[in-house]
């Protein structure tokens, strides 16, 4: 397990700023001492522990529920049933247009269960154990129904309907078409037809499961929800209307979160159950999900089929266009969906210059856990598809996958580049990234390595995954799903203040889960206020009552380095101006341009002895302000809302800029397969990243590493597998294998810094990694099989048995046909 880091050719400029330096993370000191405060660490006097009774059936009517025995169990404080939920709340707001809009989704199952593990009853007791025991005494009678577990058959005639209110299992459909497909296909020399590709179902399984401690204030009607939900802005707009209360009645508090990866966005149903019980029982209610609960019910990544794909291509490998039918298996409820039906369009052409694209996108319900965002959300699936297409086309036309990529990559000189659907790629040099990645694995010498592997009886393959990590959403894209929606743009908030003793205090609207926001925010502040990062205190965690909370606050979708840090920058610059204004008045009318910040205070440029320390500034405004000019307009407590420059997309054409920044990743994997067993190892690996200006290179590299590890886990092992009755076969870490230290290949990292021209700091959101590792491993396996049957990889998860199958029967790979025009 070695790591090598390669810097770009340019010699790095000597750092004169905090930004760009690997300062020690402010978060680490508490975390390495076990002094972090995660949700399950928080206790309140008299709190009760909540346990959910969950459905053993994938699809069934609930004919009767009897909680009386459970309520009589010693230590039990009370219960909540779906019937009560239906009386006390309204169904959650649906993002979908009709028919998905008609789905009725509550905090607990009402009348029917739709997946194994669906919460039916909540039991609260004095101890975790008593709550669990009592849950087993809840009597539920079911009338089982046939389950649908294969999205491809969800709309077949005669299959049961999962949501009667929706009138069938179709949840959403939309056709996206840009360019001139007919022209592209007539211009093509070849049409490559790919019958079916499948992106599998998995998620990032943060080590900390979901949880909350909910307190109800009877006097004010306000709930305090201490939770690890990573997108309070979204949770609140889901919960408030459902609970029939104003949003300020729902106070979200978080300190440390044990990983999120998108999986902790859609816990709002469980949080509502906690809220109702905290009110009903008049005591704090604590809920911590068990690992199996998480696997059964929380935020599976979007499983997607790509059917009847046709690719128009010239003989030299120039890609003209493609059409496909994308079919998303949304699971049993639309908790964040069908947004996955548009999020992919942020990266419609991937890294390539396709001009003509048609995607007929459908989402259906199945009797599986609801899908929700997972690191690389929806773009990863689409980018895997575009990378698969590239490698299949290269194989079929007998072209070099490196050359096909380079021929079709959008070029650095074309940046900013407008995609066929109106997205604007801000900057980047993909070909250069590929060269760096190939060098890192010594691609020039790969022939010798292939021969060496062959001599040892192994099949060596090299694969490329080139992806984008689009960040800072324009929420106007939701209107492409449902034109009635009134969301657009994005925002994030920060406040920066000087306290009475001159302390610099920063609050963020974000909910970090390990991304080091306290550290990077302090770097940005210190650069502007010309002080040390040690002088900047950034409050840990999130509190929606801190006044640093906006509608889209949270930590998700690769945006902190843009939204969060731009808000910090804006607030700090406001503070700087106020300090100048105050000092100017104190110094007797000195204009701001004659002042500068230095050494923890403000001074007159030409007269450095005229110096006012921050402590004096804070003290004057907060505690010694008699005699200050009435119109001074200085509070030293500055709040800034960063709003990225977006327009509402054109709903008719499905056209517009959907995200502000496009970080890029090029990964290269080298695998060796044992043809006897299908077992393979990643023997060499390179990850090259470009996320624009890096505030803290070590944190950036850490994100690259983490995304790589998750992708490698997903590529080989991680899979939410269901049997045909809808039972999840991988409901814990025994059956759902996540990578261990011994699983990790040697890793080489490299980077390019293409500053974003669109963001205040030149940064780009990053961290999701676009699933590049999955794409690279799929390509590498296919490459290894090239001269051994030539099976084409068609699934994003390739455990050893699948590779063995493809080796022994190449028809187990993708079915592909090439038609000469």
């Amino acid at each position, binding site marked *: 397990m070695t790591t090598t880091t390669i810097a770009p050719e340019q010699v790095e400029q000597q750092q004169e700023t905090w930004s760009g330096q690997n300062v020690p993370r402010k978060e680490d000191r508490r975390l390495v001492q076990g002094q972090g405060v995660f949700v399950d660490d928080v206790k309140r006097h008299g709190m009760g522990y909540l346990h959910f009774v969950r459905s053993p059936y994938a699809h069934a009517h609930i004919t009767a529920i009897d909680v009386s025995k459970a309520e009589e169990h010693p230590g039990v404080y009370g219960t909540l049933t779906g019937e009560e939920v239906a009386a006390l709340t309204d169904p959650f707001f649906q993002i979908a247009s009709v028919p998905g809009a008609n789905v009725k989704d509550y905090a607990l199952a009402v009348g029917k269960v739709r997946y194994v593990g669906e919460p039916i009853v909540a039991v609260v007791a004095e101890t975790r*154990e008593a709550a669990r025991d009592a849950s087993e005494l809840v009597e539920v009678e079911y009338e089982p129904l046939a389950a649908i577990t294969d999205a491809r058959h969800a709309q077949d005639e005669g299959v049961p309907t999962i949501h009667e209110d929706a009138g069938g299992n179709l949840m959403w459909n939309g056709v996206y078409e840009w360019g001139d497909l007919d022209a592209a296909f007539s211009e093509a020399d070849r049409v490559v037809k790919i019958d079916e590709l499948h992106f599998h179902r998995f998620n990032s399984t943060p080590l*900390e499961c979901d949880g909350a401690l909910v307190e109800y204030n009877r006097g004010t009607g306000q709930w305090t929800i201490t939770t690890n939900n990573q997108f309070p802005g979204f949770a609140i707009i889901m919960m408030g209307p459902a609970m029939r209360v104003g949003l300020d009645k729902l106070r979200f508090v978080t300190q440390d979160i*044990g990983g*999120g990866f998108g999986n902790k966005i859609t816990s709002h149903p469980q949080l509502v159950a906690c809220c109702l019980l905290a009110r009903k029982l008049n005591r704090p209610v604590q809920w911590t999900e068990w690992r199996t609960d998480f696997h059964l019910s929380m935020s599976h990544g979007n499983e997607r089929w790509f059917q009847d794909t046709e690719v128009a291509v010239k003989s030299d490998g120039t890609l003209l266009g493609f059409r496909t039918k994308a079919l998303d298996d949304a699971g049993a409820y639309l908790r964040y969906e069908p947004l996955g039906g548009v999020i992919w369009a942020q990266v419609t052409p991937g890294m390539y210059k396709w001009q003509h694209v048609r995607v007929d996108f459908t989402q259906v319900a199945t009797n599986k856990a609801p899908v929700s965002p997972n690191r690389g959300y929806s773009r990863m699936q689409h980018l895997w598809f575009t990378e698969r297409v590239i490698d299949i086309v290269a194989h079929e036309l007998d072209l070099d996958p490196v050359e096909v990529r380079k021929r079709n990559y959008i070029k650095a000189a074309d940046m900013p580049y407008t995609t066929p659907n109106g997205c604007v790629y801000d900057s980047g040099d993909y070909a250069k990234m590929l060269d760096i990645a190939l060098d890192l694995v010594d691609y020039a010498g790969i022939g010798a390595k292939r021969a060496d592997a062959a001599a040892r009886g192994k099949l060596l393959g090299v694969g490329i995954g080139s992806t984008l990590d689009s960040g800072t959403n324009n929420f106007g894209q939701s209107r492409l799903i449902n034109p009635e929606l009134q969301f657009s743009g994005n925002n994030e908030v920060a406040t920066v203040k000087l306290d009475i003793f001159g302390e610099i205090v920063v609050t963020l609207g974000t909910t970090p889960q390990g*991304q080091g926001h306290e550290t990077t925010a302090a770097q940005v502040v210190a650069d502007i206020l010309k002080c040390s990062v040690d002088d900047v205190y950034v409050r840990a965690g999130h509190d929606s009552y801190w006044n640093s909370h906006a509608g889209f606050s949270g930590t998700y979708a690769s945006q902190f380095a843009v939204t969060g840090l731009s808000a910090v920058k804006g607030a700090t610059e406001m503070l700087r101006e106020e300090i100048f204004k105050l000092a100017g008045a104190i110094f007797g009318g000195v204009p701001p341009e004659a002042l500068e910040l230095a050494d923890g205070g403000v001074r007159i440029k030409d007269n450095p002895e005229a110096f006012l320390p921050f402590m004096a500034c804070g003290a004057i405004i907060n505690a010694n302000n008699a005699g200050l000019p009435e119109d001074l307009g200085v509070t030293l407590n500055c709040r800034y809302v960063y709003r990225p420059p977006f327009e509402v997309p054109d709903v008719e054409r499905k056209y517009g800029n959907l995200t502000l920044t496009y970080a890029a990743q090029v990964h290269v994997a080298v695998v060796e397969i044992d043809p006897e067993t299908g077992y393979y190892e990643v023997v060499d690996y390179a990850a090259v990243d470009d996320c624009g200006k890096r505030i803290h290179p070590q944190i950036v590299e850490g994100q690259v590493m983490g995304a790589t590890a998750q992708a490698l886990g997903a590529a080989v092992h991680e899979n939410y597998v269901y049997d045909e009755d809808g039972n999840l076969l991988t409901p814990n870490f025994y059956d759902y294998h996540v*990578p*261990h230290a*011994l699983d*990790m290949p040697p890793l080489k990292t490299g980077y390019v810094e293409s500053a974003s021209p669109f963001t205040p700091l030149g940064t780009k959101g990053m961290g999701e990694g676009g699933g590049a590792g999955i794409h690279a491993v799929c390509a590498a396996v296919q490459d290894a099989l090239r001269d051994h049957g030539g099976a084409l990889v068609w699934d994003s998860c390739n455990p050893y048995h699948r590779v063995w199958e493809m080796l022994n029967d190449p028809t187990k790979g993708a079915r592909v046909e090439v038609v000469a025009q």
Partner: protein
Amino acid sequence: MASSAVSTERTISVTVNGTTYEREVEARKLLIHFVRDDLDLTGSHIGCDTGNCGACSMIVDGTLVKSCMMLAVQADGATIETVEGLAAGDELNALQQSFSAHHALQCGYCTPGMLMSATALLRENPHPSDDEIKKALQGNICRCTGYWNIFEAVKAAAE
């Protein structure tokens, strides 16, 4: 907390990071729940409930243990070390400093267990080989870092 007619509770005594605690505990209570909920030492975490993830790793009578795989009553009389005992007052130990210097943690949830596994390794084998480090960390899952920096941190601390 009598939740059953039959007495299932016992009084146990454990010494954690040098402090001795005597508590009544249900016979079925797991050591990790006892330490976190009853002793309020919340540095050790729970990630899987099945002994796979190692977030709850502690050193019990000198042996590295996944404390979700052990009952609290089994620890009666034991001397237990948890992450809270690693630093000397405000002074982080070499391993803790190395984890921070090498960015071996992101969210920090697995970190206490990782630190205890690495502590147990370095105590038994102060100069481990690369393979020995990886094997020692094999029982601890991290979802943030991909392990590369954790490996480097342990290796540097050993040196």
